[in-house]
């Protein structure tokens, strides 16, 4: 039995017995076969069990009342808990706890759709329902709203939003969150926003309520177990249509970004993206298939990364664009047509840039979420991956600086495999109102312990160099959450100290998700 440090086996077993009295013994898991599922399937530490974050047991409640009782029992015995919704955040830790010996509170059985209001456009969900089953419900009931799902769709809308996840539709799922219901570390149930006014009908539509707005306290956090979440819904659009802008000159990247960003801020576009296809053409990141020419890798492996003139010449000779901008609009067809006509009139003024309208697609044609991963572990005998995903502002100079920094760091480490995998990236589209570019690449994990160790050190090195440039990580795998929080060091780490103050006040026994996002309870905190 894997115990949390400082907890006796007797206390742990007593707690498990008491959990069993609450949820039924069949829903308390502690066998090796069961616990094999409550781990990071993509752990950065294969073959190093002493470094992995391993759960001691798991308990699966079905009601808020059971969650409250579990929390109170945990306080009584000082047992650390770690809640997971579906536990499928692969690449960021999956269902691994942040502290070995924790009892996973597996919320998968709390999978009700509490309410869907099609008139006011909201839904209230429990954490255990996944995108696929929710989509099934939407389809079966002809609900005229879009479900924004990442791929694969086996994750939880609640869990995804709480980790600041994204989808192809809104790109910031948390922005759709309204009210929440949360079990606090002392077992009390809290409802945020208008939900705190008994009888209010605005819980799912008006998130602020009165006084300090506390929704954010429960995202990426260890301050409560979210048992219900209200989401605003996006209506299915009649049409979505996009366009591409292509250029064979690196110098066009900034004017293209400027034009696309302005169009989104004006409400003409619903999203935009930027790429350098020639530079990205040999990357295998995210399961991509290389389609470029060998000189791409040669240039990226050079210390100088290739000159602008060389890249522009290579793009022309291989007929692969040097810059590609994309944008799209969605809504009623007549409105989309008008918006794109305006976008075209503006963008056509960019000299040397070709505008091409894409195919229109009906909103009903949005692909349903599936459980297939386009790429997965077990390709080329790797054991998984974890993400390095910094964000930057949408400035060409920053894009090139970030890529150059990552490239040089990998080159200095002699990790050509990772360099070839990353290649080059301007992200997969602009997020958060079009003002943030999110670059994400995967560190692959193998059976080679020494290689994995070097890779982890490289990850930390990248965090370090990015921190010096102000490039932050908005999400991080469990293994690197301390490093991610360490970036936010303004004013002598006042943010982390603030988090610790709140943590100590709300969770004095430190039982909820110790270490989550690099925030530790007092008794586990390093001085």
């Amino acid at each position, binding site marked *: 039995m894997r115990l949390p440090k400082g907890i006796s086996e007797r206390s742990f077993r007593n707690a498990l017995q008491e959990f069993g009295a609450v949820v039924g*013994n*069949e829903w308390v898991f502690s*066998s*090796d*076969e*069961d*616990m*094999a*599922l409550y*781990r990071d*399937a993509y*752990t950065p530490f*294969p*073959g190093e069990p002493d470094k992995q974050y391993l759960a001691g047991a798991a308990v699966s409640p079905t009601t808020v009342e059971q969650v409250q009782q579990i929390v109170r029992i945990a306080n009584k015995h000082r047992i650390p808990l770690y809640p997971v919704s*579906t536990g*499928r955040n692969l690449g960021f830790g999956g269902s691994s706890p942040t502290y070995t010996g924790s009892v996973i509170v597996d919320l*998968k059985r709390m999978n009700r759709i509490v309410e869907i209001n099609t008139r006011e456009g909201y839904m209230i969900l429990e954490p255990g329902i996944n995108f*696929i*089953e929710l989509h*099934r419900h939407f389809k079966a009931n002809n609900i005229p709203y879009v479900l924004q799902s990442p791929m694969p769709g*086996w994750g939880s809308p609640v869990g995804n939003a709480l980790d600041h996840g994204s989808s192809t539709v809104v790109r910031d799922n948390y922005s759709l969150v309204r009210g929440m219901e949360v079990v606090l570390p002392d077992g009390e149930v809290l409802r945020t926003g208008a939900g705190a006014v008994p009888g209010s009908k605005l819980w799912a539509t008006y998130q602020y309520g009165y006084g300090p707005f506390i929704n954010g306290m429960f995202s990426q956090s260890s301050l409560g177990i979210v048992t219900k979440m209200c989401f605003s819904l996006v209506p299915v659009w009649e049409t979505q249509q996009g366009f591409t802008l292509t250029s064979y000159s690196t110098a066009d990247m900034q004017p293209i970004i400027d034009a696309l960003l302005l169009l989104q801020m004006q409400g003409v576009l619903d999203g935009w993206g930027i790429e350098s296809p020639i530079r990205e053409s040999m990357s295998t990141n995210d399961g991509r298939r290389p389609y470029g020419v060998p000189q791409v890798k040669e240039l990226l492996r050079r210390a100088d990364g290739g000159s602008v003139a060389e890249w522009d010449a290579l793009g022309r000779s291989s007929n692969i664009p040097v810059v590609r901008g994309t944008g799209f609009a969605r809504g009623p067809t007549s409105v989309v047509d008008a918006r794109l006509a305006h976008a075209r009139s503006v963008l056509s003024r960019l000299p040397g840039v070709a505008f091409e309208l894409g195919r229109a697609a009906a909103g009903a044609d949005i692909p349903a979420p*599936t*459980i*297939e*991963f386009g790429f*997965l*572990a*077990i*390709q*080329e*005998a*790797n*054991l998984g991956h974890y993400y390095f995903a910094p964000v930057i502002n949408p400035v060409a100079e920053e894009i090139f600086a970030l890529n150059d920094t990552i490239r040089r760091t990998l080159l200095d480490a002699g990790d050509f495999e990772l360099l070839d995998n990353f290649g080059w990236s301007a992200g997969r589209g602009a997020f958060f109102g079009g003002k943030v570019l999110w670059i994400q690449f995967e560190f692959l994990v*193998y*059976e080679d312990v020494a290689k994995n160790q070097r890779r982890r050190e490289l990850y930390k090195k990248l965090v370090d160099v990015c921190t010096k440039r102000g490039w932050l990580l908005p999400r991080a795998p469990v293994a690197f959450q301390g490093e991610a929080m360490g970036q936010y060091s303004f004013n002598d780490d006042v943010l982390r100290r603030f988090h610790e103050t709140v943590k100590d006040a709300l969770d004095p026994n430190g039982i909820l998700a110790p270490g989550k996002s690099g925030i530790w309870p007092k008794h586990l905190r390093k001085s």
Partner: protein
Amino acid sequence: MTSRRTFIQAGLAAAVSIPFAKAFGSLPPAAMPLHAVYFDQRFAAARAFGEAAVRLGGNARAMSGAVHDFWYHDLAPRWRTRPIAIAGMTDPQAVFLLEMMAADVGMRVVYRGHHLPQSSGRYAHEGFGPPHARRAVAEFDVATRNWATGAARIVAHWPLAECSIAASTGTNVGAASGRALGHQALVSWVIAPVTRVG
């Protein structure tokens, strides 16, 4: 009149019974009902496995790597009301996905056989699960030609008794995780509802 098909199936059933008789000393144990036996038709060995499963009376279903469609349309709705076991021989990715989704309804992988292609074109084998299954897999070596048929026998008559989670079953199926198998490897497996003992 007994048809040739029935006769062959009876003969095969008798042949299948023998290893169980060896393991358990007398009559074969009660077999767990299997909803389907999936095989990845992209691989010759998996096709042989599927054919053997048919001969053994299994509901063999071909697939080509992707699991979403049959999980979504068949398994997910079925499992919501009554989890029922499945078995198969697929690539590692498929069983990884199915294991995840089966866990949502309390099912577990109770057996895994890893079949790793060698440069000779043959396969090396390793079994994870209760002792009877590990012994059966251990009888395959790189020279064994009809190992896919043997793998089908292991899954087709999986004993109900080996679907419990308890310290006494002696299973080592947990040790199978964390192995890098490569995308040409095959995995034979059983995913089943489990009971918890003690």
